[in-house]
Structure formats: structure tokens, C-alpha cells
């Protein structure tokens, strides 16, 4: 006390300030430390947590649910729209963060593998070949879609293609047959469009990004074009490109008014609610047509191979193969993660989910009972026969897609002409390819 009395006012104040600073700093440090350490503390003594991310549709929801039932692990799944899933994965993986263990990499598997973000699965396959019945998984899908530069980076979990959905009741009532050519599609759509009754001939999926890309790729390839030639030169600004975009523009006249904002979900709902009579939709949406809780058209929708350009011509529907990959930055035991993944994709589970997409295990796709039970598996097989193909797997394809499709959209809205839209879209892609060193100067 005597000591305190002896100190000057300024000295006491300085002491208070210093104490206050010390306490504040310690509280801040304690707070940050607690935030940083909390996940570690929480993990002590608990089951390992497997973090999963993918886009969302029924098949992937099914797999996520099954992974969640795997014994001895805690499962945290994130199922979000396609674009957002891609964005989150890219941000986390580019920083080397172990945020996700299992990811649906699909069309960007090669991009991620090239950047060193994925774990090569070959050693794990060798170790668990028998236990997970690896050889039953379609080897063509493993080799052509889930591998990169000779190494396996993914496990195929589904295969889907785009079907031509049509309302057989409406077509029958109008005395029409499902269209087999583009001209027939336009004519049928025109005949079935009655805006006063909120009925439109066709749906299209035209939201910029992968939605637009799916539809455009089908039109482009069916007219004989493609995104690139064998030397990686961008080739959408072509006669086939003009025909593709012009047909889409023509069909848009018979589509719901806001079809430029339609992604897969909106197109599905438009069919389910009887707003549209036809359209290109993913196979994974087929079962939803017969769901009485969500659909007003149960039993009224049938499926066919999408129309060809001309009579007797070739239709080239979009094919998509889903791959699950393991992050190169996972902190979990890779053996465990691989087993969670491959044991979830078991024969029993694939048989149970066969209605949601084409299974990737040979024993299931060849099972007559499964083929008999799910009527659209026949269409899926017809699509493959017709020549359904996946999109290019080079990293630039997905990287430039938003800007490319934004430019193509302008051709549909009339903001620019169709050839100008193609020219601009091609330039965006070509600039990126040049920047990445694809072409010699």
C-alpha cells in the first residue's frame, strides 16, 4: 500500500494500461488458440471423420447416405449445386487444405490430377483388389474417365446420359410421334405450345455454365461438330456451331419464358409439373417423373434417344461418368478412406440404386432382373449405342465454361447474332488455350 502511495499518478496509469494490454492480449491469444485447437481436441478419442463433397442429385444423395452408414466412422457430407461444389473444392485444394477426403470429381478429374490434388489409387487397388471386388467395376469407365496419364484417380460411381423425355399422353392426343430429327422436334414443339394454358412444347437447360454446355454439346456434336479438333484447336465457330445455336434459338420460342435461367432442377420441375411436353434431361431425373409426391405426370413420361440432325443421321447425346476421388491432402488413413468409398459402391448398394443411374458394376448392369425392373436402362444402353460421349476433359474446358456459355447465350437472346456469339465464345476459349501454351506461336 505504502508502495502504491509512493508511485506517481502517471506510473500507476502506465501500470494499469500495461496490465490491461496483457489481459487483452492473453484473451485474444487464448481465443485464437481455442479456435485453432478445437477440432484437434474434439477429435481425440472419437471415430475418424470422413468429409465428403459433391453436387446434388438423387444418385449422389444415395451414395452419401450409404457412406454415412459405414461402421466406425463419422461422416460429414456436403451436397451442394455443381458450380459451388467445384468452386469450394478448387479453393480448398489449391491451398493444400485437408478439408475433404472424398470428392465427386467427374469431368474435372484430369484437371485436379494434373495439379497434384488427387491421390493415385493404384497402390490401394492392388492392396484391396479382392476385398472390394475391384474387377467387377467397369474397366472401360475406370480407364477412360477415372484415370489420368496412366494412373487411376477415381472410382466410377455412376454413368448417366441425356435422354429425350416426352409426354406420351400429349403426343398421342395430338396424333404425333416422338421426334427423331431436329426439324421434327421443332415442329412437334410448335404444335404442343399453348402459352394461354401454360403449356410449352419443350424445355431446354440454358443457364450459363455447365447447364448450357450440356445442351449445346449435344446439338453441336449431333450436327457433326465438336469443341476441339485433334490439335486442340477450338472449333465451335463452325457450320455445325451455327446450326446448333440456331436450332436452340428456334426451340427457345416454344420453351417457357424464363428458360434462359433453367438449370437441371428447373427443367425437371417443368416436366414434372406438366409445363413442358418434351426436352433433354439427364437420365438421373427419370425416376423423379414417376414420384407421386413431386410429379403430376406419373406414368405419362417416356424416354428416347435424342433426335438426330436429319433422318437416319446420328445422335450424339451427352454422357457423364461420375468419379469419386480421394484428396491428396487427406489426414485420414488412405486405406480407410478407400475402403469406405469402394465398399459403399458394393454390388448390393448398386442393385438398390439402379433406378437412379446406370450402375458401374458389370454384374449389376448385366443382371436381367435389374434391366427388367428399370425401363430407362434400355434407353441408356441405346444412348451408348448411338454414340453418347463425355465432354473434353482438359482443364481449360471447365475453366472457361462460364464465360463461353455467357457469350453463346447472347446469340440466343439476340444481343448479338449467332455467328458473332460463336466467334466471341471461341475467342474466350482460344485465348485461354493460348495462354496455357497449347499452341506454338
Amino acid at each position, binding site marked *: 500500500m505504502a508502495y502504491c502511495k509512493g508511485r506517481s499518478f502517471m506510473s500507476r496509469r502506465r501500470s494499469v494500461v500495461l496490465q490491461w494490454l496483457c489481459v487483452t492480449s492473453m484473451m485474444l491469444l487464448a481465443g485464437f488458440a481455442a479456435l485453432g485447437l478445437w477440432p484437434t481436441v474434439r477429435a481425440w478419442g472419437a471415430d475418424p471423420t470422413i468429409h465428403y463433397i459433391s453436387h446434388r442429385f438423387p444418385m449422389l444423395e444415395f451414395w452419401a447416405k450409404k457412406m454415412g452408414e459405414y461402421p466406425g466412422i463419422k461422416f460429414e457430407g456436403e451436397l451442394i449445386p455443381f458450380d459451388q461444389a467445384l468452386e469450394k473444392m478448387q479453393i480448398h485444394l489449391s491451398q493444400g487444405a485437408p478439408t475433404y477426403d472424398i470428392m465427386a470429381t467427374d469431368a474435372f478429374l484430369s484437371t485436379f490430377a494434373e495439379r497434384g490434388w488427387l491421390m493415385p489409387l493404384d497402390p490401394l487397388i492392388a492392396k484391396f483388389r479382392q476385398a472390394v471386388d475391384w474387377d467387377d467395376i467397369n474397366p472401360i469407365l475406370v480407364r477412360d474417365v477415372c484415370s489420368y496419364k496412366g494412373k487411376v484417380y477415381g472410382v466410377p460411381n455412376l454413368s448417366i446420359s441425356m435422354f429425350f423425355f416426352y409426354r406420351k399422353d400429349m403426343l398421342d392426343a395430338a396424333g404425333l410421334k416422338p421426334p427423331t430429327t431436329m426439324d421434327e422436334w421443332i415442329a412437334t414443339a410448335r404444335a404442343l405450345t399453348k402459352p394461354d394454358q401454360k403449356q410449352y412444347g419443350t424445355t431446354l437447360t440454358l443457364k*450459363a455454365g455447365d447447364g448450357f454446355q450440356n445442351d449445346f454439346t449435344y446439338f453441336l456434336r449431333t450436327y457433326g461438330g465438336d469443341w476441339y479438333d485433334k490439335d486442340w484447336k477450338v472449333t465451335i465457330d463452325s457450320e455445325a456451331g451455327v446450326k446448333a445455336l440456331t436450332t436452340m434459338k428456334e426451340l427457345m420460342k416454344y420453351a417457357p419464358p424464363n428458360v434462359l435461367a433453367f438449370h437441371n432442377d428447373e427443367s425437371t420441375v417443368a416436366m414434372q409439373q406438366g409445363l413442358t411436353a418434351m426436352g433433354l434431361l439427364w437420365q438421373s431425373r427419370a425416376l423423379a417423373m414417376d414420384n407421386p409426391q413431386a410429379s403430376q405426370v406419373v406414368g405419362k413420361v417416356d424416354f428416347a434417344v435424342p433426335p438426330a440432325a436429319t433422318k437416319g443421321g446420328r445422335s450424339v447425346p451427352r454422357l457423364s461418368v461420375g468419379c469419386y476421388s480421394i484428396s491428396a491432402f487427406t489426414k485420414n488413413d488412405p486405406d480407410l478412406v478407400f475402403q469406405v468409398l469402394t465398399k459403399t459402391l458394393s454390388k448390393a448398394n448398386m442393385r438398390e440404386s439402379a433406378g437412379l443411374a446406370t450402375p458401374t458394376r458389370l454384374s449389376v448392369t448385366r443382371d436381367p432382373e435389374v434391366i427388367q425392373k428399370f425401363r430407362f436402362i434400355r434407353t441408356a444402353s441405346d444412348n451408348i449405342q448411338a454414340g453418347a460421349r463425355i465432354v473434353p476433359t482438359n482443364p481449360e474446358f471447365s475453366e472457361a465454361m462460364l464465360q463461353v456459355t455467357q457469350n453463346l447465350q447472347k446469340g440466343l437472346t439476340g444481343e448479338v447474332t449467332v455467328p458473332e456469339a460463336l466467334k466471341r465464345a471461341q475467342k474466350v476459349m482460344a485465348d485461354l488455350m493460348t495462354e496455357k501454351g497449347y499452341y506454338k506461336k
Partner: protein
Amino acid sequence: MSRQQRRDRLIFLVPSMTVLVAILFYPLAYSIWLSFYNYYLPVPRKSFVGLDNFRYVLEDSAFWEALSVTARFTGAAVALELVAGAAVALLLDSRIPCRRFVNTVVLLPMTITPAVAGLLMRWMFESNWGLVNYFLSLVGIRGPGWTGDPAWALWSLVLADAWQNTPFVIVVLYAGLQSVPTEPLEAAMVDGATRTQTLTHVVFPFLRPLVLFVLIIRSMDAFRIFDQVFVMTGGGPGTTTQTITFYNYVMAFRLLRMGRASALGVITLLILSVVIGFWIYLLYRREKGEW
């Protein structure tokens, strides 16, 4: 003030300055630093490119398009909010029944986060099943495709923004109306001024600084709009609703060009500073009695 006192004051400033530096100055400085580098997210190595990123952005037609969209959006949204906000504030200031209830209801949109408001609006403006087109159909109008129609997409964003932010204008102007002194109003009444004359010559001069304040705040916010664009239109159709901030997002998180995105951010900051500087200049001129 003694040297010791100055030092003490500086010590007291340390905690708040630490927070400011950590969450404001450091990211800003980092962003400026990054804008001089070629930083492609998947490749950890950054290389110094000087002003190349700025040149790229300024030569990019998408940037000018986005700037034009942002300017049109900001102008339309802020004008609509000011007019609607002033009208409702005046209505509330007059003796209307259930004033307290109306006051509360009017404020509700402000309590909703922009992303949620965007989702609500997306369904309201849905052309086939949305409420807006349903109400229009009741009076015999077939509503447009709103978010999917290039002619209406920007307007649907403007209306969504107005729905959410007009309450802010109402609150500020209503508070201003409450503080208008009664003497000049009574004097105007004695002099036989009409209601319009009282409004324009007596009430409005009192509100002018508040109007400017609202203009500054709302212009800043509207210029930075992102949530509603992301949720409602995704920048489309085409690029008709691609605002500067949305384009910045595309550049950073879709194209992963962090250096260019930072340069775009710096340019946006400069543009916004000039606009806001102009408003503030006007405000100070007013305070100095120059207008």
C-alpha cells in the same frame, strides 16, 4: 499535451488499431500487392508483372460491360429507393391509422439477409409459378420471364434491391421528418403556403443532408451488390446482370486469376472512392452553406 500523455494515448489505440490492421488494412494491402503479380490459384508460384493486370482489366470488354450494368443498376435502384422511401416516410409522418404496425411491417425486409432475400425474390419472380406473375395475371397481364429475360433481368434485381433497402431510406427520412422544427411549418401555414410549397420550401431543405447521407450509403451498397445477383440471376442471361463484384467473383473463383481479380478490386475501389468523394464534397459544401 505532454509526450507521456501522447504515448499513453497511443498505447490505448493499440488494440483497436490491431483489429483494424488485421481485418481491414492487411487484406487491402495484400490485395494491392497481389494486383501486381500473376497469381493463378492452382500454381503456387507468383510472378511480378507490374501493371499488366490493370492493363488486362481495362482492355477487357467484360469489365466495361460490368461497369455499365453496375452503373445502371445503382442509378435505378437508388433512385427508386429514394422516391419510394420518401413517399412512405411522408405517409408515416402524416396521421395514418395503425402507424406503429405499418412502421414495424415496413422494417421487416431489412432484417433479412441479402442472400435469403435473393432466394425469396427468385421464387417471387419465377415466371411460371411466382407470386409476381400470379398477381399480374389477376389483372389480365401475362408477366415476363423476369430473371430469364434480358430485358427484365436487371429490373428484377432492381425491384428486389428496392424491396430490401427502401426501409433503410424510410427510417432515415422518417427520423428527419420527426425532427423538422414546428416553427417554420407554422409560419408557412400562416403565410398561406400550400402543402406542396411547404414540402418543397420548408421540409425538404431540412432533409437535404439526410438525403445526401442516404445517397452515399445506398450508392456504396448498390455498387457492391453481389448476393442477389449470385442467387437470382447468376449474372445472366448472357452478361446482362453481371455487375462488377460478380465479375470480380468470376475472375477470382471461377477463373482462379487472383492477380487480375485483385487488380479489378483495386480499380473498383478507386471508382467507388471517386463517386463517394463527390457525394461527400457536396455534403461538405452544404455544411459550409455553399448551397
